């Protein structure tokens, strides 16, 4: 055998190996979805898809399986996390890529990486003993500290590294010429950042936010520890509509984690159905991100 044919042999073999690795993740996603769907089917059939999605009462002991309250809980806590976390993360990204002197960036960047490495149960613990008592000091009747606000803050810190890192990368990838051109035309540094660099980095920033959203929707254990886990549709507890964030709630992930170890029969199936809803929700978020990114690139 000549070395030439051996080399093409290795090439072909490697191609197959790489193809298999790539297909593995597609296969795993498919398998998980099929399995979850299969386990959830009895619940969807017996309770009804619409009934599950529109009912707010979850009382498995009484055969009531509405997950609307949990969808609202997951949605609101994610919204809260984005409202708090995205400005913080974007600020960090711009500072690191455009403003920070080397030595400060050398301190900030490893700290953010460390933030990403903290296990979520530690975030939960911190939330439980530090944030919850802090939130409790907000004067409002029935405010026990456990609820959406504490959970949103914890979540905001948890998604900060993801959003900050990817956004920083996106900002750094903006061609130098854009910045130089803008400054040469007489724009100030802030005008250059806000009008030229950030718009140019928009697709990357959007995908960063969406990845953060995905992480926020999927976070479980830290949420269980601070959100109160009550199955209620969150409502404002005072006249101020923002006080909705002082309400307790339960997330879709929390619902599964809290109850799966006890569940049997239709209850177990309903928890898998909760998983299917979560799955679809995350697919929608990722899908819209792809769409937004494409739009961003075009414009």
């Amino acid at each position: 055998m000549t070395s030439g044919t051996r080399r093409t042999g290795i090439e072909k073999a490697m191609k197959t190996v790489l193809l298999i690795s790539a297909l593995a993740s597609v296969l795993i996603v498919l398998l998980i979805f099929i399995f979850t769907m299969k386990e959830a089917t009895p619940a969807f059939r017996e309770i009804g898809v619409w009934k599950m999605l529109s009912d707010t009462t979850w009382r498995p002991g009484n055969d009531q399986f509405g997950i609307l309250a949990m969808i609202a809980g997951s949605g609101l806590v994610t919204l809260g996390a984005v409202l708090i976390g995205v400005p913080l993360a974007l600020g960090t990204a711009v500072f690191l890529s455009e403003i920070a002197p080397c030595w400060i960036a050398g301190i900030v960047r490893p700290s953010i990486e460390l933030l990403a490495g903290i296990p979520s149960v530690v975030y939960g613990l911190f939330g439980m003993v530090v944030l919850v008592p802090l939130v409790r000091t907000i004067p409002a009747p029935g405010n026990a500290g456990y609820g959406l606000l504490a959970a949103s803050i914890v979540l905001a810190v948890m998604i900060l590294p993801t959003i900050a890192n990817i956004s920083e990368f996106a900002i750094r990838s903006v061609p130098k010429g854009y910045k130089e051109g803008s400054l040469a035309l007489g724009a100030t540094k802030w005008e250059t950042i806000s009008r030229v660099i950030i718009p140019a980095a928009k697709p990357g920033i959007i995908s960063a936010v969406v990845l953060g959203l995905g992480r926020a929707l999927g976070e479980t254990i830290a949420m269980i520890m601070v959100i109160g886990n009550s199955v209620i549709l969150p409502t404002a507890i005072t006249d101020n509509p923002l006080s909705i964030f002082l309400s307790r709630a339960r997330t879709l992930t929390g619902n599964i984690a809290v109850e799966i170890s006890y569940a049997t029969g239709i209850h177990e199936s309903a928890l898998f159905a909760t998983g299917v809803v979560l799955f679809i929700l995350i697919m929608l978020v990722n899908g819209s991100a792809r769409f937004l990114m494409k739009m961003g690139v075009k414009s």
Partner: protein
Amino acid sequence: MKRKITTMIVMTSMMLLGACGEPGVETPDADGTSTEAVETVEISVVGSTTVQPLAELLSEAYEAIDPNVLVTVSGGGSSVGVKSASEQSADIGMASREIKASEIQECPEIVIHTIARDGIAIVVNPDVDVDELSIDEARAIFAGEITDWSEVGGTPGIITVASREEGSGTRSAFEDLVMEDAFISATAILQPSNGAIRTTVVTTPGSITFISFGYLDDSTKPIAIDGAFPTPENVNEGSYPVVRPLNMVTYGEPTGAVAEWLEFILGEDGQAIVAAEGYLPIN
């Protein structure tokens, strides 16, 4: 501390048995073959996570006496325990509550062995100045009908109800014993473990919850129900009302190694372990 006591009991019972060389316990075989040739018998025990730690200790203790028996204990919850016994997928099912009529109806062959009793205490945040509730007041509080401490004789302040999650054996026992037909309020803070619920109530002003006697400590403030404080003495006297059985369930009358293990649990040594772990022996 509790572990130490248990280990001591196990060791003492081993020594005693070793000294007496009690027959019958050592060799379950009736045909009298030599002990060396005896095959290992496996007993599978499945169910309540409340009973699980106790069952694990009891199995360790028994394995020390009879090394030919291997008891494997796994969790899953009381309902899973009863189901596993009914379906004979496990030798023994564990349940930290009464067996429901529906469960007996589904499988009339099951036999219930109560191995211990466990009280459920109502505890409040230490700042709450209420020391006693009637069982009706407790029910109304947990159902969300009474929402202010002033309604039950305390300083005005909102009551924050905390509870275990749906499916927990402690919760379902509490529902049976206290709530009757009422539901625990949907706005209650839910925490998925005894430890987390205790932390929640100790740190949240105006809060109230229920926990197993085994989890009472210096940080908690238990209150009296119908005049009786949650103590083992009051349970034995019958004045404390919120007590649940810890059950082992078998399919039909147990035989062989299973019967012997249950006998050990109900005997003096087994019940000593039960007491050392903070539960109430059955006698």
